[in-house]
């Protein structure tokens, strides 16, 4: 079983929709969970990080961690065409990235 699994997509949703992006993981030692956004040919940009289980909200973005299920989610409300990018989950003790989900917001 891979340490971090993430559906590569692409995921296409209409503008204004709520987007749900997810990752599963196998290593129960992970304590910090991050979401990065990566535009084409650019470096990853940190969106949010959370520690252990629970929710964290920042504007239109909500990160959710369920350590009992080893499952993390990123929700994007009121999605915009500018949200079209690849979203990477990452987690640590030593940092491991998911493969990324390509998201397309359709105007």
């Amino acid at each position, binding site marked *: 079983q891979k340490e971090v699994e993430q559906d590569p997509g692409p995921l296409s949703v209409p503008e204004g929709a709520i987007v749900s992006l997810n990752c599963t993981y196998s290593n129960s030692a992970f304590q*910090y969970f991050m979401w990065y956004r990566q535009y084409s040919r650019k*470096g990853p*940009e*940190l969106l949010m990080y959370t520690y252990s289980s629970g929710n964290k909200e920042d504007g239109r973005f909500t990160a959710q961690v369920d350590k009992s299920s080893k499952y993390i989610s990123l929700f994007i409300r009121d999605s915009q065409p500018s949200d079209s990018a690849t979203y990477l989950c990452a987690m640590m003790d*030593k*940092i491991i*990235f998911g*493969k990324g989900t390509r998201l397309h917001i359709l105007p």
Partner: protein
Amino acid sequence: EPEVTQTPSHQVTQMGQEVILRCVPISNHLYFYWYRQILGQKVEFLVSFYNNEISEKSEIFDDQFSVERPDGSNFTLKIRSTKLEDSAMYFCASSEVTAYEQYFGPGTRLTVT
């Protein structure tokens, strides 16, 4: 807003040649990292660097790789004898204190021919 910068943006080199990729981390950051991303693959950790020494490295970071902070601002990744499979995007990142709050540079695309 401060940012991590990397040069060059694209480097083409022949197999067996040495390359040096350069990074300028955010000025008050203390921890520095290199990652690579092979086309279509996930971002992979190579090495972390703190207080002028390697703090952690992955199995990818073998004897062909080395890192250096030659002065107070630059952070470099050297690949001694490049192989075709070293072709990838190489990202530098830095963090002030915590490894979960890293800021990435735009990357250097390395093409080995």
